[in-house]
Protein backbone atom coordinates (compact mmCIF):
# COMPACT_ATOMS: atom_id res chain seq x y z
CA UNK A 1 0.00 0.00 0.00
CA UNK A 2 1.41 3.38 -0.90
CA UNK A 3 1.83 5.75 2.01
CA UNK A 4 0.64 8.84 0.14
CA UNK A 5 -2.36 7.36 -1.47
CA UNK A 6 -5.23 8.29 0.76
CA UNK A 7 -8.56 8.45 -1.05
CA UNK A 8 -11.55 10.38 0.27
CA UNK A 9 -14.89 9.21 -1.08
CA UNK A 10 -17.47 11.98 -0.65
CA UNK A 11 -20.83 10.27 -0.81
CA UNK A 12 -19.39 6.90 0.12
CA UNK A 13 -22.67 5.23 1.02
CA UNK A 14 -24.45 5.44 -2.33
CA UNK A 15 -24.07 2.57 -4.76
CA UNK A 16 -21.14 4.04 -6.73
CA UNK A 17 -19.28 5.13 -3.60
CA UNK A 18 -19.68 1.89 -1.71
CA UNK A 19 -18.73 -0.19 -4.76
CA UNK A 20 -15.57 1.87 -5.16
CA UNK A 21 -14.71 1.63 -1.46
CA UNK A 22 -15.02 -2.15 -1.51
CA UNK A 23 -12.98 -2.44 -4.71
CA UNK A 24 -9.99 -0.25 -3.90
CA UNK A 25 -9.50 -0.92 -0.18
CA UNK A 26 -6.57 -3.25 -0.84
CA UNK A 27 -4.64 -0.51 -2.64
CA UNK A 28 -5.62 2.71 -0.92
CA UNK A 29 -6.19 4.12 2.53
CA UNK A 30 -9.83 5.18 2.63
CA UNK A 31 -11.62 8.15 4.14
CA UNK A 32 -15.34 7.49 3.81
CA UNK A 33 -17.55 10.56 4.03
CA UNK A 34 -21.33 10.72 4.03
CA UNK A 35 -24.11 12.27 6.06
CA UNK A 36 -25.33 9.15 7.86
CA UNK A 37 -23.02 7.88 10.59
CA UNK A 38 -24.95 4.61 10.77
CA UNK A 39 -24.54 3.92 7.07
CA UNK A 40 -20.87 4.87 7.22
CA UNK A 41 -20.31 2.48 10.11
CA UNK A 42 -22.04 -0.30 8.20
CA UNK A 43 -19.98 0.36 5.09
CA UNK A 44 -16.78 0.49 7.10
CA UNK A 45 -17.66 -2.92 8.58
CA UNK A 46 -18.37 -4.33 5.11
CA UNK A 47 -15.07 -3.06 3.72
CA UNK A 48 -13.01 -4.39 6.63
CA UNK A 49 -14.85 -7.73 6.42
CA UNK A 50 -13.86 -8.00 2.76
CA UNK A 51 -10.29 -6.89 3.42
CA UNK A 52 -9.00 -7.32 6.95
CA UNK A 53 -5.92 -5.20 6.16
CA UNK A 54 -7.98 -2.26 4.91
CA UNK A 55 -7.20 1.14 6.40
CA UNK A 56 -10.56 2.89 6.69
CA UNK A 57 -11.71 5.98 8.56
CA UNK A 58 -15.15 7.55 8.49
CA UNK A 59 -15.87 11.27 8.51
CA UNK A 60 -18.98 13.40 8.15
CA UNK A 61 -17.24 16.54 6.90
CA UNK A 62 -16.38 16.81 3.23
CA UNK A 63 -13.73 19.47 3.84
CA UNK A 64 -11.91 17.47 6.53
CA UNK A 65 -11.96 14.34 4.38
CA UNK A 66 -10.67 16.26 1.35
CA UNK A 67 -7.99 18.01 3.40
CA UNK A 68 -6.60 14.70 4.61
CA UNK A 69 -6.83 12.98 1.22
CA UNK A 70 -4.39 12.81 -1.66
CA UNK A 71 -7.16 11.83 -4.07
CA UNK A 72 -10.79 12.99 -3.79
CA UNK A 73 -13.68 11.07 -5.30
CA UNK A 74 -17.04 12.81 -5.52
CA UNK A 75 -20.23 10.87 -6.15
CA UNK A 76 -22.58 13.85 -5.76
CA UNK A 77 -25.40 14.60 -8.18
CA UNK A 78 -24.94 17.47 -10.61
CA UNK A 79 -27.22 19.82 -8.67
CA UNK A 80 -25.08 19.42 -5.50
CA UNK A 81 -21.74 19.87 -7.24
CA UNK A 82 -21.37 23.63 -6.87
CA UNK A 83 -22.07 23.61 -3.12
CA UNK A 84 -19.71 20.71 -2.53
CA UNK A 85 -16.95 22.26 -4.65
CA UNK A 86 -17.15 25.51 -2.71
CA UNK A 87 -16.70 23.55 0.53
CA UNK A 88 -13.61 21.65 -0.57
CA UNK A 89 -11.99 24.10 -3.00
CA UNK A 90 -9.52 25.49 -0.47
CA UNK A 91 -8.15 22.05 0.46
CA UNK A 92 -8.31 20.44 -2.99
CA UNK A 93 -5.58 22.55 -4.63
CA UNK A 94 -3.21 20.44 -6.75
CA UNK A 95 -5.05 17.25 -5.78
CA UNK A 96 -6.64 14.73 -8.09
CA UNK A 97 -10.44 15.02 -8.02
CA UNK A 98 -12.59 12.34 -9.65
CA UNK A 99 -16.28 12.96 -10.20
CA UNK A 100 -17.97 9.58 -10.38
CA UNK A 101 -21.50 9.69 -11.75
CA UNK A 102 -24.05 7.47 -13.45
CA UNK A 103 -25.93 10.41 -14.97
CA UNK A 104 -24.88 12.38 -18.05
CA UNK A 105 -22.27 14.91 -16.96
CA UNK A 106 -21.38 18.22 -18.55
CA UNK A 107 -17.75 18.14 -19.59
CA UNK A 108 -15.51 20.51 -17.66
CA UNK A 109 -18.22 21.45 -15.14
CA UNK A 110 -16.30 20.37 -12.04
CA UNK A 111 -12.94 21.52 -13.41
CA UNK A 112 -14.39 25.02 -13.73
CA UNK A 113 -15.44 24.88 -10.07
CA UNK A 114 -12.04 23.55 -8.95
CA UNK A 115 -9.59 25.35 -11.26
CA UNK A 116 -6.48 24.45 -9.27
CA UNK A 117 -7.22 20.71 -9.02
CA UNK A 118 -6.62 17.93 -11.53
CA UNK A 119 -10.21 16.99 -12.33
CA UNK A 120 -11.54 14.05 -14.28
CA UNK A 121 -15.14 12.96 -14.77
CA UNK A 122 -16.04 9.28 -14.87
CA UNK A 123 -19.50 8.45 -16.18
CA UNK A 124 -20.65 4.92 -15.57
CA UNK A 125 -22.72 3.49 -18.41
CA UNK A 126 -23.47 -0.20 -17.97
CA UNK A 127 -20.14 -1.99 -17.68
CA UNK A 128 -18.19 0.92 -19.15
CA UNK A 129 -16.52 3.82 -17.38
CA UNK A 130 -16.29 6.82 -19.69
CA UNK A 131 -13.41 9.05 -18.61
CA UNK A 132 -13.19 12.73 -19.59
CA UNK A 133 -10.83 15.46 -18.52
CA UNK A 134 -7.53 17.11 -19.39
CA UNK A 135 -5.38 16.04 -16.45
CA UNK A 136 -3.24 13.05 -17.43
CA UNK A 137 -2.39 12.01 -13.86
CA UNK A 138 -6.04 12.18 -12.82
CA UNK A 139 -7.05 10.12 -15.85
CA UNK A 140 -4.46 7.44 -15.02
CA UNK A 141 -5.64 7.19 -11.41
CA UNK A 142 -9.31 7.12 -12.42
CA UNK A 143 -8.63 4.41 -14.99
CA UNK A 144 -6.81 2.26 -12.43
CA UNK A 145 -9.66 2.61 -9.94
CA UNK A 146 -12.32 1.78 -12.49
CA UNK A 147 -10.42 -1.31 -13.55
CA UNK A 148 -10.36 -2.41 -9.91
CA UNK A 149 -14.15 -2.03 -10.02
CA UNK A 150 -14.18 -4.30 -13.11
CA UNK A 151 -15.37 -1.62 -15.55
CA UNK A 152 -14.05 -1.36 -19.07
CA UNK A 153 -12.49 2.01 -19.80
CA UNK A 154 -13.59 4.40 -22.52
CA UNK A 155 -12.24 7.89 -23.21
CA UNK A 156 -14.75 10.27 -24.74
CA UNK A 157 -12.13 12.58 -26.25
CA UNK A 158 -9.56 9.91 -27.07
Amino acid at each position, binding site marked *: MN*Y*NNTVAILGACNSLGSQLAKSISSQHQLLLMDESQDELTRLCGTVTALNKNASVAVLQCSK*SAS*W*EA*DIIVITAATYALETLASKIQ*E*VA*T*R*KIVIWLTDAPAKEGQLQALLP*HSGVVTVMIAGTAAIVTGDDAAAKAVAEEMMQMCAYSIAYLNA
Partner: protein
Amino acid sequence: MAGSGFNTSILFKYPHGNHVLQAGACICFIQLTFVWMFEVIFSHIQEKVQLTKEEQALIKTFFTPKKLRKKQYLLQEGDVCRYLVFVEKGLLRSYNVDEKGVEHMIHFAWEGWWMSDTYSFLSAEASAYNIDAVEDAELLMINLQGFEEMLLKVPAMERYFRILFQNNIISKERRLISSITHSAEEKYTQLAAANPQMIQRIPQNMIASYLGLTPETLSRIRKKLSAGA
Protein backbone atom coordinates in the same frame (compact mmCIF):
# COMPACT_ATOMS: atom_id res chain seq x y z
CA MET B 1 22.55 22.53 -4.94
CA ALA B 2 23.65 18.99 -4.15
CA GLY B 3 27.23 20.14 -4.56
CA SER B 4 26.68 22.95 -2.13
CA GLY B 5 25.99 20.69 0.76
CA PHE B 6 22.23 20.23 0.38
CA ASN B 7 22.52 16.49 0.27
CA THR B 8 20.51 15.69 3.33
CA SER B 9 17.18 16.79 4.67
CA ILE B 10 16.47 20.45 5.18
CA LEU B 11 14.96 22.22 8.08
CA PHE B 12 14.42 25.94 8.33
CA LYS B 13 13.44 27.65 11.50
CA TYR B 14 10.74 30.27 11.70
CA PRO B 15 11.89 32.45 14.59
CA HIS B 16 8.39 33.19 15.81
CA GLY B 17 6.81 30.04 14.53
CA ASN B 18 5.71 28.87 17.93
CA HIS B 19 3.71 31.94 18.85
CA VAL B 20 0.36 30.38 18.22
CA LEU B 21 0.86 27.43 20.53
CA GLN B 22 3.05 28.99 23.16
CA ALA B 23 0.90 31.93 24.05
CA GLY B 24 -0.98 31.97 27.33
CA ALA B 25 -4.05 29.80 27.55
CA CYS B 26 -6.73 32.39 26.83
CA ILE B 27 -4.75 34.21 24.15
CA CYS B 28 -3.81 30.88 22.66
CA PHE B 29 -7.49 29.97 22.27
CA ILE B 30 -8.33 33.27 20.60
CA GLN B 31 -5.38 33.02 18.22
CA LEU B 32 -6.13 29.45 17.29
CA THR B 33 -9.72 30.42 16.53
CA PHE B 34 -8.57 32.83 13.87
CA VAL B 35 -5.74 30.83 12.38
CA TRP B 36 -6.42 30.29 8.69
CA MET B 37 -4.61 28.15 6.21
CA PHE B 38 -1.45 29.88 4.92
CA GLU B 39 -1.31 32.24 7.91
CA VAL B 40 1.88 30.74 9.33
CA ILE B 41 3.64 30.40 6.00
CA PHE B 42 2.88 33.95 4.91
CA SER B 43 4.04 35.28 8.29
CA HIS B 44 7.23 33.29 7.79
CA ILE B 45 7.79 34.50 4.25
CA GLN B 46 7.04 38.14 5.09
CA GLU B 47 9.68 38.08 7.84
CA LYS B 48 12.17 37.85 4.98
CA VAL B 49 10.57 39.25 1.83
CA GLN B 50 7.52 41.35 1.02
CA LEU B 51 4.68 39.94 -1.06
CA THR B 52 1.80 41.71 -2.75
CA LYS B 53 -1.76 40.41 -2.34
CA GLU B 54 -1.61 39.19 -5.94
CA GLU B 55 1.61 37.29 -5.27
CA GLN B 56 0.09 35.71 -2.17
CA ALA B 57 -2.95 34.59 -4.17
CA LEU B 58 -0.68 33.11 -6.83
CA ILE B 59 1.54 31.34 -4.29
CA LYS B 60 -1.52 29.64 -2.77
CA THR B 61 -2.21 27.88 -6.05
CA PHE B 62 1.14 26.06 -5.94
CA PHE B 63 0.64 24.38 -2.56
CA THR B 64 -1.28 21.23 -1.76
CA PRO B 65 -2.89 21.39 1.71
CA LYS B 66 -2.64 18.11 3.55
CA LYS B 67 -3.59 16.79 6.98
CA LEU B 68 -1.49 14.02 8.44
CA ARG B 69 -2.45 11.88 11.42
CA LYS B 70 0.00 11.03 14.19
CA LYS B 71 2.38 8.24 13.11
CA GLN B 72 1.28 8.53 9.46
CA TYR B 73 4.11 8.56 6.93
CA LEU B 74 4.83 11.43 4.59
CA LEU B 75 7.88 9.72 3.13
CA GLN B 76 9.26 6.20 3.44
CA GLU B 77 12.84 5.15 2.87
CA GLY B 78 13.31 3.95 -0.72
CA ASP B 79 10.63 6.25 -2.16
CA VAL B 80 11.36 9.50 -3.96
CA CYS B 81 10.64 12.61 -1.89
CA ARG B 82 8.12 14.49 -4.04
CA TYR B 83 7.51 17.52 -1.86
CA LEU B 84 8.94 20.37 0.11
CA VAL B 85 6.67 20.55 3.13
CA PHE B 86 5.81 23.50 5.34
CA VAL B 87 4.31 22.75 8.76
CA GLU B 88 1.34 24.99 9.53
CA LYS B 89 0.44 22.97 12.62
CA GLY B 90 1.77 19.85 14.33
CA LEU B 91 5.14 18.13 14.45
CA LEU B 92 7.09 16.03 11.93
CA ARG B 93 10.33 14.11 12.25
CA SER B 94 12.79 12.75 9.71
CA TYR B 95 14.83 9.71 10.63
CA ASN B 96 16.86 6.84 9.33
CA VAL B 97 16.54 3.22 10.48
CA ASP B 98 19.76 1.18 10.70
CA GLU B 99 20.25 -2.54 10.03
CA LYS B 100 19.40 -3.37 13.63
CA GLY B 101 16.11 -1.50 13.37
CA VAL B 102 17.29 1.40 15.50
CA GLU B 103 15.85 4.81 14.58
CA HIS B 104 18.25 7.74 14.21
CA MET B 105 16.57 11.15 14.33
CA ILE B 106 17.76 13.63 11.74
CA HIS B 107 15.41 16.58 12.09
CA PHE B 108 12.17 17.77 13.62
CA ALA B 109 9.83 20.35 12.16
CA TRP B 110 6.92 22.11 13.85
CA GLU B 111 4.88 25.24 13.14
CA GLY B 112 6.88 27.51 10.86
CA TRP B 113 9.48 24.98 9.73
CA TRP B 114 10.12 23.30 6.42
CA MET B 115 10.79 19.58 6.07
CA SER B 116 11.97 17.48 3.14
CA ASP B 117 14.76 15.28 1.86
CA THR B 118 16.24 17.92 -0.42
CA TYR B 119 18.59 15.60 -2.25
CA SER B 120 15.81 13.18 -3.13
CA PHE B 121 13.45 16.08 -3.94
CA LEU B 122 15.86 17.71 -6.38
CA SER B 123 17.41 14.57 -7.89
CA ALA B 124 14.32 12.31 -7.95
CA GLU B 125 16.47 9.55 -6.42
CA ALA B 126 15.25 7.29 -3.65
CA SER B 127 15.34 8.76 -0.17
CA ALA B 128 17.34 7.25 2.68
CA TYR B 129 14.93 8.78 5.19
CA ASN B 130 11.51 8.34 6.66
CA ILE B 131 9.34 11.31 7.52
CA ASP B 132 6.28 10.87 9.71
CA ALA B 133 4.04 12.82 12.06
CA VAL B 134 4.91 12.90 15.76
CA GLU B 135 1.69 14.88 16.30
CA ASP B 136 -1.35 15.36 14.05
CA ALA B 137 -0.21 17.85 11.43
CA GLU B 138 -1.53 20.36 8.91
CA LEU B 139 0.90 20.80 6.05
CA LEU B 140 1.39 22.78 2.85
CA MET B 141 3.25 20.77 0.24
CA ILE B 142 4.82 21.85 -3.03
CA ASN B 143 6.23 19.54 -5.68
CA LEU B 144 9.30 20.24 -7.81
CA GLN B 145 7.36 21.41 -10.85
CA GLY B 146 5.29 23.80 -8.75
CA PHE B 147 8.39 24.95 -6.89
CA GLU B 148 10.25 25.85 -10.10
CA GLU B 149 7.18 27.57 -11.54
CA MET B 150 6.62 29.54 -8.35
CA LEU B 151 10.22 30.77 -8.27
CA LEU B 152 9.88 31.94 -11.88
CA LYS B 153 6.57 33.71 -11.38
CA VAL B 154 7.29 35.18 -7.95
CA PRO B 155 10.94 36.30 -7.83
CA ALA B 156 10.59 37.28 -4.16
CA MET B 157 10.22 33.59 -3.39
CA GLU B 158 13.61 32.88 -4.96
CA ARG B 159 15.15 35.36 -2.52
CA TYR B 160 13.16 33.80 0.35
CA PHE B 161 14.47 30.32 -0.40
CA ARG B 162 18.02 31.61 -0.86
CA ILE B 163 17.87 33.05 2.65
CA LEU B 164 16.50 29.76 3.98
CA PHE B 165 19.19 27.70 2.27
CA GLN B 166 21.87 30.04 3.68
CA ASN B 167 20.44 29.65 7.16
CA ASN B 168 20.30 25.91 6.66
CA ILE B 169 24.00 25.73 5.79
CA ILE B 170 24.89 27.70 8.92
CA SER B 171 22.65 25.51 11.04
CA LYS B 172 24.22 22.33 9.67
CA GLU B 173 27.74 23.62 10.27
CA ARG B 174 26.88 24.51 13.86
CA ARG B 175 25.35 21.10 14.45
CA LEU B 176 28.44 19.40 13.02
CA ILE B 177 30.78 21.43 15.21
CA SER B 178 28.62 20.74 18.24
CA SER B 179 28.60 17.00 17.55
CA ILE B 180 32.40 16.75 17.36
CA THR B 181 33.47 19.25 20.02
CA HIS B 182 30.82 19.34 22.74
CA SER B 183 30.19 16.98 25.61
CA ALA B 184 26.83 15.22 25.92
CA GLU B 185 25.76 17.67 28.62
CA GLU B 186 26.78 20.68 26.53
CA LYS B 187 24.86 19.35 23.54
CA TYR B 188 21.72 18.97 25.63
CA THR B 189 21.95 22.34 27.40
CA GLN B 190 22.59 24.14 24.12
CA LEU B 191 19.63 22.42 22.49
CA ALA B 192 17.39 23.22 25.46
CA ALA B 193 18.45 26.87 25.38
CA ALA B 194 18.03 27.25 21.62
CA ASN B 195 14.84 25.19 21.28
CA PRO B 196 12.94 24.97 24.57
CA GLN B 197 9.84 23.92 22.65
CA MET B 198 11.68 20.87 21.37
CA ILE B 199 12.37 19.66 24.89
CA GLN B 200 8.71 20.10 25.86
CA ARG B 201 7.07 18.56 22.81
CA ILE B 202 9.34 15.79 21.65
CA PRO B 203 9.65 12.44 23.46
CA GLN B 204 12.94 12.07 25.34
CA ASN B 205 14.06 8.98 23.43
CA MET B 206 13.80 10.95 20.17
CA ILE B 207 15.77 13.86 21.61
CA ALA B 208 18.45 11.44 22.79
CA SER B 209 18.66 9.96 19.31
CA TYR B 210 18.81 13.44 17.75
CA LEU B 211 21.77 14.32 19.97
CA GLY B 212 23.49 10.97 19.34
CA LEU B 213 23.05 9.90 22.97
CA THR B 214 21.48 6.86 24.57
CA PRO B 215 18.20 7.49 26.43
CA GLU B 216 19.98 6.47 29.66
CA THR B 217 22.69 9.10 29.15
CA LEU B 218 20.12 11.80 28.46
CA SER B 219 18.14 10.77 31.52
CA ARG B 220 21.28 11.04 33.70
CA ILE B 221 22.05 14.49 32.28
CA ARG B 222 18.50 15.71 32.92
CA LYS B 223 18.56 14.42 36.50
CA LYS B 224 21.90 16.08 37.12
CA LEU B 225 20.71 19.39 35.68
CA SER B 226 17.44 19.38 37.60
CA ALA B 227 19.29 18.51 40.83
CA GLY B 228 21.66 21.42 40.24
CA ALA B 229 18.88 23.87 39.37
